[in-house]
């Protein structure tokens, strides 16, 4: 067991891609212990990715890319602008609201950061926001992407937790926390904007204008409705919802906005395949580790160990979140999830925590890794767009980090926030 951990740590620190670290570690382990034949490795890897529920990942990523390329995104931003552009710090609010809208289309935070950032950071800088703040708002707000459904992270969680949570239930539990998180960030932006006297837009809020812009945005806003509606009514599974979302994006892109060409579609498919291959390679090799862990009954032993420290589920929740947050400072979100869900999820159930509630908190905490320096992919993308560096925005990110973590602790302590919607639809007893 310790051998596993050491070997993994060494290879990771050496800079070997995480997916292959997991593979190398398991090979070393099998060679040393002779517990299994090496031939099980390809079989396990194949089994790790040969899964219909997992296919939702490439499909949702594809749908996100297609919607982006079909020119629906500017419409969403315009709508957000009509809604909140008149507040102090207008464009920053637009950034957050647009991220929330786009979250309903795409399932990955990074796509959010890149798409919204490239559209809003340049105008923000032009209007006199400083580069640091523009980058931070973009990166922080895109965290709602994986919390508001659809969410690739949640699909991975549901798969790694081995059937104890349903993707649909997890999707639903994210709706309210996602909105709370967005509103919280808008509140923080409001305060910061007044204190730093960021520019005020001359345009006043007009209901008519908002309505007009809503008409343009409807095409984009339909996607989450179709996905959630279809899953909730039992019309299709989450994976099929992904397929329907792709079909919808293709139809609007080709017939209505007429922005999609065959070449663009092909490049969307290619990019989505590459992005998902990175995730799937990790899932494949993590399957071997998960198998080894079960043989050695690690989750059971871990539970026994933690039970000795505390039997209070709330203390355990907060402890788990702190551990995840610390790991998030050096590791990327998806990798953390794939490695730790098989260990943590059974423990949470042993503590009597509702699996969906724990799942949502897990996903949220792990997403913060995207903005915790030094390894912060989301922040990195946003900084590059704003032409600044992670070192420079260091000071600006803290208020957002505290805010997000504070909101999460609150959500952790009142499970009703997450569980109300899934309970309403009968996904959770």
């Amino acid at each position, binding site marked *: 067991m310790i051998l596993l951990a050491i070997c993994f740590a060494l*290879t*990771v*620190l*050496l*800079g*070997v*891609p*995480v*997916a*292959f670290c997991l*593979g*190398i570690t398991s*090979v070393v382990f099998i060679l040393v212990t002779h517990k299994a034949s*090496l*031939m099980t*490795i*390809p*079989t396990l*890897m*194949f089994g790790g*990715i*040969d*899964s*219909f529920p*997992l*296919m939702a990942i*490439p*499909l949702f990523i*594809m749908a996100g890319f297609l919607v982006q390329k079909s020119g629906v995104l500017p419409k969403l931003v315009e709508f957000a602008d009509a809604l909140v552009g008149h507040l102090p710090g207008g464009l920053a609010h637009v950034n957050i609201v647009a991220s929330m809208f786009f979250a309903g289309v795409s399932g990955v935070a990074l796509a959010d950061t890149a798409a919204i950032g490239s559209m809003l950071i340049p105008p923000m800088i032009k209007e006199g926001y400083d580069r640091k703040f523009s980058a931070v708002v973009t990166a922080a707000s895109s965290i709602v992407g994986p919390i508001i459904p659809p969410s690739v992270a949640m699909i991975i969680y549901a798969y790694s937790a081995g059937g104890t949570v349903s993707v649909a239930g997890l999707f639903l539990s994210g709706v309210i926390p996602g909105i709370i998180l967005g509103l919280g960030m808008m509140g923080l932006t409001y305060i910061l904007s007044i204190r730093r006297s960021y520019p005020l837009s001359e345009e006043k809020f007009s209901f008519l204008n908002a309505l007009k812009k809503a008409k343009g945005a409807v095409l984009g806003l339909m996607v989450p409705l179709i996905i959630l509606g279809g899953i909730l009514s039992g*019309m*299709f599974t989450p*994976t*099929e919802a*992904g*397929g*329907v979302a*792709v*079909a919808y994006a293709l139809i609007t892109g080709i017939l209505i906005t007429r922005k999609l060409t065959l070449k663009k579609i*092909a490049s969307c*498919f*290619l990019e*989505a*395949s*590459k992005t*998902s*291959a*990175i995730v*799937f*390679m*990790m899932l*494949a090799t993590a399957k071997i580790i998960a198998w080894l862990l079960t043989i050695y009954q690690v989750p059971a032993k871990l539970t026994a160990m933690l039970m000795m420290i505390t039997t209070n589920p709330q203390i355990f929740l907060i402890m788990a979140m702190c551990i995840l947050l610390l790991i998030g400072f*050096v*590791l*990327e979100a*998806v*990798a953390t999830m794939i490695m730790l869900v098989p260990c943590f999820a059974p423990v949470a159930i042993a503590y009597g925590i509702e699996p969906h509630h724990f799942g949502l908190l897990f996903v949220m905490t792990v997403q913060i890794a995207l903005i915790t320096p*030094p*390894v912060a992919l989301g922040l990195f993308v946003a900084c590059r767009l704003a032409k600044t560096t992670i070192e420079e925005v260091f000071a600006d990110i803290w208020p957002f980090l505290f805010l997000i973590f504070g909101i999460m602790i609150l959500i952790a302590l009142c499970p009703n926030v997450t569980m109300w919607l899934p309970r309403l639809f009968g996904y959770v007893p």
Partner: protein
Amino acid sequence: MFYYLKKIVEGLVIVCSAVMTFLVIIQVFCRYCLGVSIPFSEELSRYLMVWVVFLAAGLALKDDAHISIKVLVDKFQERRRLWLSLAAQILLLAFLVLLLVESIALLPYQRVQIITSMGISIFWFYLAIPVGCVIMILFLLPKMYQKVKEILNKANYEEPRKTLKGKRL
């Protein structure tokens, strides 16, 4: 040659992922609009996804897109960093070769396993692993060659500085 390899793999990935997506869409369409279900769509799309993953993993490797942690490695001086990343690549290569060997060894057993819904052997889908490994190795080798060249260049370049300062960098 690597350029053509890349183009071919890219083409295959696009075709496989397009067919996979199409199958899922058709599955929903047939169930609701035609009232029939296709027996093989779910399985075939799943196995196509395995192909997509192993092919596209090679492309991701070429782009250095696989998630890795460089914090520690970046702390080192350039020469040691080069050595360390070469070591990482060697480990990666070793794993890929092992996976290649083991998955080929497994292939004969798969010939007899027939997927009932389609009547073809699962062999054709397990084949994705060795093929993917070969592609990844092919993309990895020029990267390693590049690293070795960089290390050699650095060695030559830093020779005079080393003697000047009198200590190793």
